[in-house]
């Protein structure tokens, strides 16, 4: 039972990563590789700030800012430098590796004995693993509401229009370059924030912790979409969080079933591939009708 609580807590914390990528991957229709660099960047900034005496909250907000900067760099490379988007993201991701080493001064910093967002008296009074559940819920609720509010404003609508059809958006007088830059900043800010929270929950920042994060983010988005079908935009944001939780529960189940840990990467890829192929499999075998009604493929 405790392990399930732990998995839910982890899912809530990692959901920020999925939400961040959702803005670029689904709404702006761009696959942003920057996140593999921004995630450890957020962790590096937060942990370094904390060890230098910043309050955990200030350190976490700094991580958000650092993520936004990284997003802006990718955005400028793409919009002003005319570098293909995938490449722009990879360039920033590669560069942040050196930046992270510079920030931390070494490859791994521990938070043992330091104050974090999880060490307040309220957090430590909770039952085991409920600290990440409570903090995750609070952060996710605030971020999801802010995103819903943002996407509902005129600016947010122009943001969505840019992703749907950039040419049309431009003809309507939307500065698509600016909206893309802002979108990337918000998205990577959230990823940096996620890195900061995960580092505080894990108790360390490591320069290699970004490896594989993009798969985790995609898993949250895709599992959320496949599991819950046709939803409004704001409901879809909630689905990302649920997708992230389900992904952690699947991993836990795999571990509990006693699969060799060597096969873990293979299994998580298979789970993800099956989820992504579900619309195709459905066409062939009509497997979904009895279980899922009206699932939207959403691509």
């Amino acid at each position, binding site marked *: *039972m*405790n*392990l*399930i*609580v*732990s*998995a*839910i807590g*982890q899912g809530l914390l*990692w959901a920020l990563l999925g939400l961040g990528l959702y803005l670029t991957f689904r709404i702006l229709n761009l696959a942003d590789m920057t996140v593999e660099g921004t995630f450890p960047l957020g962790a590096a900034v937060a942990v370094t700030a904390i060890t230098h005496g910043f309050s955990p909250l200030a350190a976490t907000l700094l991580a958000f800012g650092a993520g936004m900067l990284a997003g802006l760099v990718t955005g400028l490379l793409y919009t002003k430098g005319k570098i293909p988007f995938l490449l722009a993201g990879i360039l920033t991701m590669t560069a942040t*590796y*050196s930046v992270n*080493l510079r920030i931390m001064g*070494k*490859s*791994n*910093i*521990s*938070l*043992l*004995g330091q104050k974090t967002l999880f060490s307040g008296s309220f957090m430590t009074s909770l*039952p*085991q*693993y*409920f600290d990440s*559940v409570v903090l995750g819920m609070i952060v996710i609720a605030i971020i999801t509401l802010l995103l819903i509010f943002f996407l509902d404003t005129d600016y947010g609508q122009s943001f969505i229009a840019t992703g749907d059809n950039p040419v049309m958006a431009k003809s309507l007088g939307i500065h698509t370059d600016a909206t893309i830059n802002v979108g990337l900043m918000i998205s990577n800010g959230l990823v940096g924030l996620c890195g900061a929270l*995960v580092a505080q*929950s*894990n*108790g*360390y920042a*490591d*320069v*290699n*912790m970004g*490896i*594989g*994060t993009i798969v*985790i983010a995609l898993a949250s988005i895709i599992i959320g979409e496949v*599991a*819950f*079908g*046709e*939803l409004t935009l704001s*409901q879809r944001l*909630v*689905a990302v969080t*649920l997708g992230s*939780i389900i992904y*952690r529960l699947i*991993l*836990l189940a795999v*571990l*509990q079933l006693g699969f060799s*840990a*060597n096969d*873990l*990467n293979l299994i998580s890829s298979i789970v993800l591939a099956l989820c992504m192929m579900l619309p195709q499999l459905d066409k062939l075998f009509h497997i979904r009708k009895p279980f*899922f009604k009206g699932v939207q493929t959403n691509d």
Partner: protein
Amino acid sequence: MKRMYTVIAILLAFLGVAYFKENGGIVKQAKPKVGVLTLMHHPALDQIYKGFVHGLAKEGYHNGKNITIDYQNANGDQSNLKTMANKLVNENSTVLFGITTPASQALANSTKKIPIVLGAVTNPQGAGLVKNNKRPGGNITGISDQAPVKEQLQLVHKFMPHAKTLGIIYTSSDSSAVTEYKEFMKYAKQMHLNLKAYSISNSNDLNQVSQQMLSEVDAVIVPTDNTIAGAMQTLVKNANAVNKPVFPAVDTMVKQGGVATYSINQYKLGVEGGKLTADILKGKKKPSTTAIKYIRHGEPVLNLKQARKLGLHVPASFQREAEKYGEVIK
């Protein structure tokens, strides 16, 4: 949409029940359980685990008979470490064994009560795992994999007493390598040796950086560095091209074309870890008062074939020592 609300309701209901459920009832286990957490597969890390199992067996603890070993490997993905550490802690492991720094940190962050034994953490104090390497204080102790740096520098000096400049190359993101590089610099200063540092960020940089380095130095030192260990052939090829020797910190790197070293045997390190774990299981030792153990005396390893190829004069005393206590590659 309905399905989404159902899932949210189920999750919340579950969390509600879990919140109020008493967590006191720890099940007494008949067999003690040893949890092992490692970051990834790597020849050296796998050797430590094998040694660990053997060390436990030497002390009378056989996996499956009177203890259960739960081995978890995160496959290089650090996001798995937390879940695996929680799993090991939750299943009431009696003692935990962490291989690599991130794995040990994940364990340390999951429990303050269950004893943790560190394997292959070069500097536990520097990694924030213990308050003090001599008196850990908490629930953590272990074996450091720091190579006998001073012995190695003396060895290089023995081989090349007239060398003007030595070069050291390491990976800047490998915390063990960085710790050892700093130790090397410290001792080099004490011994008045001119040691110049070069760093790479991944194995792809090695070719170019090592060529640059070899044009500036007389011999090369390599600390315990996973990245360079994996790309040792590149370094050796470049060094042979200019007829300069490489002195690595690890025996496997000597076999791949290094000249000589005093190396820590990873397998033996694992055995020591297993013995320490057994002592804790028996209640003979407590982590808080057990100092981090360093393996002071490395095993002499000499690659005679390589030394002859480079026309190096091999100190006779070292060759005898290697023949007697260590390994000579001919």
